[in-house]
């Protein structure tokens, strides 16, 4: 039971995995102590006073006290002191967590779309979607923006959230302590599928990360399987390529996620489903049934075409 409850805090704001999140965590815990003390005081008084001073007989009137200046000064003074303490604690935490960007160049740009994430890595042509690989131990500057409505980047274990606003670039610093998978989600209501706009940050050791980056720079390999080749032809010459890119082929659409290494992702549709051929088949059959509102229209493909497309996309590792 206790072990189960411990699981509740995994991936929460208390499971800090970056110095930024750690700073916020200690401030939060400080606040919890102070407010619990305040809460306890009010709760005890709100129970004690009514019990102690309940009406015993209705004839006599109690002493008519209209106020007490000394108590009033105390009532204002104590909260005021607390407020000042927390203001300065907040101030120092803010400048530690989110110092001005200065002339620093962002390590990657993350763009919010209805309803998926796009990550473009600086100094490389890698474009990832939804599963965002980051190296541990390095202080990274994320540039955040949006192409449509306001979204919000939030991975609780890595620190605070930041809005992604169309027409504006926002920035966030993050230094990940240890490798692992960090769950997050869009935290600004962004329309129909706001719920399925989840983030997976895959934090890797620098060597693994470099390995991933190199692998993802590579263009798509020419297929040799006939079903896959049929799928590739369909993808390139049917409507898919007008919205999706696959580097190294003619598909260069920019509306939807870049699918060059789609097969290497664990999940699809921004965390909605596991990335399996069955789910992919279901999605391609009728996107509006799987994720209503998503901007991918329903193409009335034959079953063979969908099978070919599934085979093609699944092998894009």
């Amino acid at each position, binding site marked *: 039971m206790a072990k189960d409850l411990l699981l*509740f805090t*995994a*991936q929460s*704001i*208390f499971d800090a995995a970056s110095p930024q999140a750690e700073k*916020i965590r200690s*401030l*939060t815990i400080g*606040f919890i102590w102070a407010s619990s003390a*305040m*809460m306890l005081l*009010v*709760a005890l008084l*709100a129970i004690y*006073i*009514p019990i102690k*001073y309940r009406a015993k007989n209705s004839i*006599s*009137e*109690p*002493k*008519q*006290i*209209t*106020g*007490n*200046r000394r108590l*009033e000064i105390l*009532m*204002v003074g104590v*909260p*005021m002191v607390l*407020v000042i303490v*927390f*203001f300065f604690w*907040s*101030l120092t*935490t803010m400048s530690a*967590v989110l110092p*001005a960007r200065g002339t620093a160049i962002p390590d990657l740009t993350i763009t919010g779309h209805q309803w998926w994430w796009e990550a473009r890595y600086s100094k490389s042509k890698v474009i990832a979607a939804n599963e965002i690989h980051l190296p541990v131990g390095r202080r990274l500057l994320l540039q955040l923006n949006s192409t449509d*409505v*306001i979204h*919000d980047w*939030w991975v*609780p274990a890595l620190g*605070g*959230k930041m809005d992604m*606003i*169309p*027409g*504006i670039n*926002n920035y966030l610093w993050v230094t990940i302590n240890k490798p692992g998978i960090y769950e997050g*989600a869009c*935290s600004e*209501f*962004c329309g*129909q599928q*706001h*719920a399925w706009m989840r983030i997976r940050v895959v934090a890797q050791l620098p060597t693994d990360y470099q390995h991933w980056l190199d692998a993802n720079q590579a263009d798509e390999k020419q297929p040799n399987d006939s079903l896959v080749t049929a799928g590739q032809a369909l993808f390139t010459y049917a409507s898919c390529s007008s919205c999706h890119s696959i580097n190294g082929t003619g598909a260069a659409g920019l509306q939807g996620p870049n699918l060059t290494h789609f097969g290497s992702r664990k999940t699809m549709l921004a965390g909605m489903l596991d990335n399996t051929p069955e789910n992919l088949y279901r999605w391609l059959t009728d996107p509006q049934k799987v994720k*209503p509102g998503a901007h991918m229209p329903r193409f009335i493909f034959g079953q063979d075409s969908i099978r070919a497309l599934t085979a093609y996309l699944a092998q894009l590792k």
Partner: protein
Amino acid sequence: MEENYLQVPEPEQALPDLSISSSQGVLQWISSVDHKQIGIMYLWLSVLFLVIGGLEVLVVRLQLAVPNNHLLSPEAYNQLFTMHGTTMIFFVLTPAIFGFATYLLPLMIGANDMAFPRLNAFSFWATFFGGILLYFSFLAGGAPDAGWFNYAPLNQYNYSSSPGIDYYCFGLLLSGIGTVSASVNFVVTILKFRIGSMSLKQMPLFVWMILINSFLVLAAFPSLNAALIMLLLDRQLHAHFFSSASGGSAILWQHLFWLFGHPEVYILILPIFGIFSEVFPVYSRKPIFGYAFVIGSGVAIALLAFGVWVHHMFATGLGNTVNNFFAASSLLIGVPTGVKIFNWLATMYGGAIRFKVSMLFAIAFLVEFTIGGLSGVSFAIVPIDWQLTDTYYVVAHLHYVFIGGSLFGLFSGLFYWFPKISGKMLDEQLSRWFFWLFVAGFNLTFLVQHALGAMGMPRRVYTYPNLPGWAILNLISTVGGFLMAIAVGLLIYIIVKGIRSGDKAAADPWDANTLEWMTSSPPELKNFDRVMPVKSTRPYRDYKRPEDADWKKPNKYGK
């Protein structure tokens, strides 16, 4: 020609009682300019929308009861949560507060009606038709679906092409006009229609809070109305105020909305502070602790309320300098709000406390509102806000303030003034059941949501993955929601039973202090024939206990 005119029934001697059937007919209510009837209509309107907004959220909670649920489509879910929020704020809490104010204000200051009775009727009907217009959207092609604060550019035509958001604009504009005109009426009534001997320093605290509140309304609503009109221009005439794709600013909407929206939060709580400042003294048999202090902190809240709106926008990337300024002001406003809790505790201290249901809600409020207030302070601490804003922690916080604060206050006021308004007593035993059921359901629903937020659950999601702990906490929340619904059902039964067959109420059943308890229950059409001279904040108590009258005592304040 004569028969072409509609014969509007004039109210006769006594007011019709609460049930429409036994009165002089519906037309007499519709045509009424009497502040008591208009006040009662405001309160019924609020009950109607409480039921509608409550049913909406029950479906929402059902959808969230289990992970990956398919009960509702995302489209339907988004319409329901948007309508729930908009309804509860603009058509439940606001009309309920204005209902009490419209009914009680003239009675508490010894006047026979509001300063502008026809404007008073206009205010009510503007609110009424605002609500109808908002709900007409369901028939017109879809309700608004961008949340009650309706952020740009999601509120633009290309992201929400159903007419819902247009109805949102028209509905809120119309009801907003009603709110503003009612506030003008309150200000003039308070300043010009007090019984001659009542100085400002002798006004009941409820009247004081309505006075402060009315100025808040007059200053805050123009910002909302401007934003709504700009949005309508965007949607209907292709203006570009909020569309960044064509040179507008998405963030501008947030500034305009919250410049209204944060004062609105105080608009929904200051009058509640007024209600409690009447209830605590009466059931404690003591005067309010720090009368001037309560007014002073109310004024401080009203002034600071206009300097805190950016704390809704700490995660929009405005920079640390701006954020620090608004962190300071937001932390500051917590102080005058928080100290009032101690004013009421000190009012009870040394008293002779009677546990009527009204008082039970008041005592429970002290605890619940402190929870909501403290979680509110955590949003003024910017880094904590960065983690917790727009999560279920906010949902928990705002419900502790709006329910644990505003609604508890309205319930307390309802049980306190119901005998005056209806002339009937409510069933005390059943009312106690209602109290405990509602308090239990409320805490069950919202306490766990603090944890859900810290665990990473964003607000406004139509479903969620089955992460550790999410399913069970959401299920608890849903069960709590249904308990609250059962409690509200019981409340409506209690009210109807009270009106139909409650015991007859005396003019002054609680041995109260203020002028409204001098007249009969319910009051005659003309509130007062004569009012005794007002010499202190508790004129009716002075009258009942001349040997112990406040004005005879030396002012022993201080030490």
